[in-house]
């Protein structure tokens, strides 16, 4: 039997079996941001350690950065303290820092791929659970805690348990108006928010193979929402075409060598898996969450489930979710009034997301009373979108066009919900209070569904609004 990508890459990066039985794993690319790294540098200093491979760590600022103005010092002095800390830490230890002044700042999971730092067959770690995004390239990429950020700074390795591998096949043609975001919400809905614990998800099948790199990133991004720390797609020609010519991608004679390595780490045709799940693309509808975890999702035409419709173990969470969301069982999700619409984040803040939405919103207006934000994932995405005139389309439709950052995904910057506002959001988490107000409510969906909700002022079927 052949081997899967996860096992091949894992074995190539295994340094040693530790006394505990865990593996010491070499990390090829380490990405850091301002929230989970300063404490790690503090630990390095207090232990009098060095950063062993500063050239393998890259830094940016994304979580706390305001998206309405870049004026320094930031109004929030805690945010200012954090941005100063990461810059100083990078300078002291010789780490490349993509701050605003470089023109390359952005969400860490957007800039890694766009600069060609993210490559197949690597191990990639970052103090952020959405690091699974980078798996789109056929890398083993995962989120880590701050003590592990310290471990990588000091040793370029971490201690980790090997994961099992679940192959998720999605085959067939997606219906119009159904996107990578819907695939991932559908998978999480089926397998549950803890279904992936202990697993890496390998996504494959004809539907996945037909996805663009940016769509694959959206898909892998939310693996962790299904409990899987790692999600990946095998590298193929689409991967290579995306990487060719990017700043940090191999060049010249190295390019051919790189391709041969990248092909060698892809899963063998007869690879073994610990589990296999098959999904039909035609079964996937534009999907919307109604609850307080990303697994509480339904197709846009469905009604909010009743107690009888969910498994015994989910009943308690259903009651809690409905109470928090102020929604009612057996009612349609369509027609739920929204206050805020957010398009952006490491899930859906890339150029193709904006291009796709802009194609349809031309000529429409955001409904009165709805606050609608479009936030590019990186400064490069912003520049490219403006070059294509997309910002004008959004502004004419009544969306605010912002600077690059995490924005309203996670409430560490000024973009937040107020009170119990409901937000149609292209981000990745609908946890209680996630978007900054302890009573704020989040409905996750694809960017086009967010745009449709912004225009109608309520959750609606984008396929009908835009005649798809």
């Amino acid at each position, binding site marked *: 039997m052949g081997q899967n990508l996860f096992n091949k890459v894992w074995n190539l990066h295994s340094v040693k079996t530790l006394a505990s039985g865990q593996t010491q794993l070499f990390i090829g690319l380490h990405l850091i941001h301002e929230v989970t790294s300063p404490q790690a540098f503090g630990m390095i200093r207090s232990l009098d350690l060095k950063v062993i491979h500063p050239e393998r760590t890259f830094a940016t600022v994304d979580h706390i950065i305001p998206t309405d103005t870049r004026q320094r010092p930031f109004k929030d002095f805690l945010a200012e303290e954090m941005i100063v800390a990461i810059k100083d830490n990078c300078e002291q230890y010789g780490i490349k820092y993509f701050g605003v002044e470089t023109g390359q700042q952005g969400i860490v999971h957007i800039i890694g791929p766009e600069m060609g730092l993210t490559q197949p067959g690597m191990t990639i770690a970052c103090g952020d659970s959405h690091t699974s995004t980078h798996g789109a390239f056929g890398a083993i990429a995962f989120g880590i805690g701050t003590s592990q950020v310290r471990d990588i700074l000091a*040793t370029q390795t971490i201690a980790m348990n090997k994961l099992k591998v679940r192959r998720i096949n999605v085959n067939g043609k997606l219906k119009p108006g159904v996107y990578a975001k819907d695939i991932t919400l559908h998978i999480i809905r089926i397998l549950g928010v803890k279904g992936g614990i202990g697993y890496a998800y390998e996504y494959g099948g004809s539907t996945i193979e037909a996805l663009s790199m940016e769509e694959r990133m959206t898909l892998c991004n939310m693996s962790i929402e299904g409990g899987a720390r790692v999600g990946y797609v095998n590298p193929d020609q689409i991967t290579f075409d995306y990487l060719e010519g990017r700043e940090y991608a191999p060049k010249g004679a190295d390019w051919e060598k790189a391709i041969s390595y990248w092909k060698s780490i892809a899963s063998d045709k007869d690879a073994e898996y610990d589990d296999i799940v098959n999904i039909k693309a035609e079964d996937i509808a534009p999907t919307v969450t109604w609850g307080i975890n990303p697994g509480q999702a339904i197709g846009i035409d469905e009604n909010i489930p009743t107690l009888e419709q969910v498994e015994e173990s989910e009943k308690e969470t259903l009651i809690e979710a409905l109470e928090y969301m102020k929604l009612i069982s057996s009612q349609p999700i369509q027609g739920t009034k929204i206050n805020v619409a957010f398009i952006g984040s490491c899930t859906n803040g890339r150029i193709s997301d904006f291009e796709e939405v802009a194609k349809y919103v031309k000529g429409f207006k955001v409904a009165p009373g709805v606050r609608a934000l479009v936030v590019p994932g990186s400064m490069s995405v912003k520049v490219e979108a403006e070059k294509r005139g997309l910002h004008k389309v959004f502004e004419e439709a009544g969306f605010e066009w912002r600077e690059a950052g995490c924005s309203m995904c996670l409430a560490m910057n000024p973009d937040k919900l107020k009170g119990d506002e409901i937000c149609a959001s292209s981000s990745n988490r609908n946890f209680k*209070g996630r978007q900054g107000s302890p009573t704020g409510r989040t409905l996750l969906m694809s960017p086009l569904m967010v745009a449709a909700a912004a225009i109608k002022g309520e959750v609606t079927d984008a396929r009908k609004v835009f005649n798809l």
Partner: protein
Amino acid sequence: MSLKQIKSVFGNGVFVTGNDIDTDRIIPARFMKCVTFEGLGKYTFYDVRFDELGNSKNHQLDKLEHQGASILISGSNFGCGSSREHAPQALFHFAIRAIIAESFAEIFFGNCTTLGIPCVTVTHEIARQIGEITEQNPKAAIEIDLEKKLIKIKSDSSSIGTYSFEIPENARISLVNGEWDSLGELLSNQDTVKELVGKLPYANNWK
């Protein structure tokens, strides 16, 4: 680095009910604007414990009878969501020293182990039973015995329950042996790391 061998954790319990308790709930993101972990304890479960004006909701964690409780009991998929170590750090600074739950999210589990906070798994029924014991008898003495993989609960020195638990064996060994923070061991293998780098095409300039 010499670390404490964690063979047992003793303490009183506090029951935080619910499944899928995520890291945003354990420490809301707005309190993560900090460059050290020291001050996080007071914001632990903040929005669960306080209303929007900052008034106490008299949550279990704040009830007089649970003051000083160091063992948290909860439902399934505890610690899901973000990889932020701020969550276990907040719990640690809130004086939590062990967690009993039906299941744990993976990154959270690893982060806790690295801080020397054992996370042990029991069935839904047992989590509920232990939770109810702590509600009826907040001063019940709980011992999590990592060598025997047993939770022993006593009241006035007479036993009121013994339950077995599960924990991944390598986490258990590292806690019991005082090797739960692996940095020292990772540092000691740098020669092997160098050898490996030499064989990795991308780490070796594609040679």
